[in-house]
């Protein structure tokens, strides 16, 4: 039924979630106390906020992911036609993948794939 179904599904998601949350909101009266709104940290009051500058070792993976993801994107149209085009497509893609695999090897060699 076409793209309109996406909108229908979105509406369904919102209705479903909002419905559930609203029912709870309306019917349940919670008690309130000063502790309730505080962040849970194993029962210890916490004063340092996590919204603090913070070291993540993950960003390198996100970088590499981005590159490979773009590559993946180009492979989709290729994969669809490879059977029809045949050997030329194979060679083209071997070159393509080979070049990127070089990058992968380089990353590996440089230790970028070692999470520290």
């Amino acid at each position: 039924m076409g793209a309109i179904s996406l909108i229908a599904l979105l509406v369904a998601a919102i209705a479903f979630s909002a419905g559930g949350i609203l029912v709870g909101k309306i019917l349940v009266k919670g008690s309130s106390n000063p502790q309730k709104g505080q962040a849970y940290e194993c029962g210890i009051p916490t004063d340092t906020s996590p919204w603090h500058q913070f070291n993540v070792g993950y960003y390198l993976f996100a970088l590499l992911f981005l590159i490979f993801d773009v590559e993946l994107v180009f492979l989709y149209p290729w994969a669809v036609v490879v059977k029809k085009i045949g050997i030329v497509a194979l060679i083209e893609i071997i070159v393509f993948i080979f070049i990127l695999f070089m990058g992968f090897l380089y990353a590996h060699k440089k230790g970028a794939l070692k999470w520290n």
Partner: protein
Amino acid sequence: MELNETLKGKEVFPGIIHETPGGGIVVSTFDSIINWARSNSLWPLSFATSCCGIEMMSTASAKYDFSRFGFEVARASPRQADVIIIAGTIVNKMAPVLKRLYDQMADPKYVIAMGACAISGGPFFYNTYSVVKGADHIIPVDVYIPGCPPRPEALLHSLISLQEKIKMGMTREQIRGDFKTV
């Protein structure tokens, strides 16, 4: 100590018994359905301080398996838990933590005091400077289950009792109410 006073539980326990506001009361016709749901889906907070916690683990283990009642979804976060099983001694240093955990739980919430320690300090009632003489000095308790430690069946029994109470449609105040009536 006079006999009568001992029996009436009027002993002056050290510390203050905190009043906690109730909540989570549904006032409508589908009460019973809600209470059925609540009673059958008591997710415990994985809270254990000492020996009784081991028996709580045994209750979770295959032989006793409290998942039969739907309790197995032990949540590590108090936000998602419905019942605290205070399994073990509560000491003065832990008391504010327990209170905070309880406070941070979303309503409705229930409390089971498991073992002598959680009820009254148990073996550590006399001559200790650091043990809270009963978890109900800190947070309201719904079901008490004596024993040191109570055996797993006893914990199951207390859970069933709690279920019964919820199913009876009592509000939280009522569930805890008869604490004051005697």
